[in-house]
């Protein structure tokens, strides 16, 4: 069996690498839900859903609370991020990516100029 307790990063990655678990996060982004409701929504057994929620919980992406016989799941505190901060982080990723693109474009330009010696406008 896969172990999910190596490092927090591995745990988060493992948690997010599964389509159902990403679906659960999306669902919980809309509203809190019980494990039973999640199991129904994703057409799974209660046991199967408990495992998924367990993985998400270990990664700190979800927290659960049992009241009476119902265990309610919600996004972990670390997921509730300010939208502005998220968009800024997204910008930084693209900025780094475009910097790399610029290097590739630069190489291609030089290659063209070097090869044909033609002046292209």
């Amino acid at each position, binding site marked *: 069996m*896969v172990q999910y307790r*190596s*490092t*927090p*990063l*591995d745990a*988060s*990655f*493992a948690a*997010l*690498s599964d*389509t159902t678990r*990403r*679906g659960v*996060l*999306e*669902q919980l*982004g*809309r509203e809190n839900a019980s494990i039973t409701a999640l199991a129904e929504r994703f057409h799974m057994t209660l046991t199967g859903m408990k495992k998924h929620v367990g993985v998400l919980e270990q990664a*700190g*992406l979800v927290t659960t609370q049992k009241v009476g016989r119902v265990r309610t799941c919600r*996004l972990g505190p*670390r*997921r*509730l*991020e300010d*939208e502005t901060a*998220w*968009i*800024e*982080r*997204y*910008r*930084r*990723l*693209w*900025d*780094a*990516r*475009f*910097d*790399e*693109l*610029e*290097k*590739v*474009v*630069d190489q*291609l*330009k030089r290659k*063209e100029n070097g090869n044909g010696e033609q002046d*292209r*406008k």
Partner: protein
Amino acid sequence: MENRTGSEPTAMKNRTTSERKSARELVITRTINGPARIVFEAWTRPELFKQWWVPKSAGLTLLSCDMDVRPGGTYKLVFKHGASEPMAFYGRYTDVTPHSRLVWTNEEGGEAGPVTTVTFKEDGGRTLVVLQELYPSKEALDAAIASGSTSGDMNETFDQLDALVVTLK
């Protein structure tokens, strides 16, 4: 937040902007120093694409990159981070207009995946790249932000994970 006053070298580092343009839409812009023809090439030839899509800072390995860049053609990118299991991103190109426009779907996340449209506009030997990610609903984009990732891309997920790791140290 960003501090632009005089901190950046005067060199012509082009600025990247990102904005939630509407309830369902994220838009990224950047000017690249080069003609649209070359920028488009770097975006559509796998051997070139591979060289820039995964910035080194993301700490990811691109295991494979299959791109059949034509309308209806599919793509599949497989990434790996450290010892974790590989993760695949895939979809289909729906518009490929040489040197000016690329549109693709992001299907790994199921039906809530966004559609990505990139346009290239050349002006004086430089190219303005505008990338739009259009989600099927406001809820889908909210959810992508809430869960720290967009279906169309995993790097920001890792970006966030890395940030999480820092906060956990």
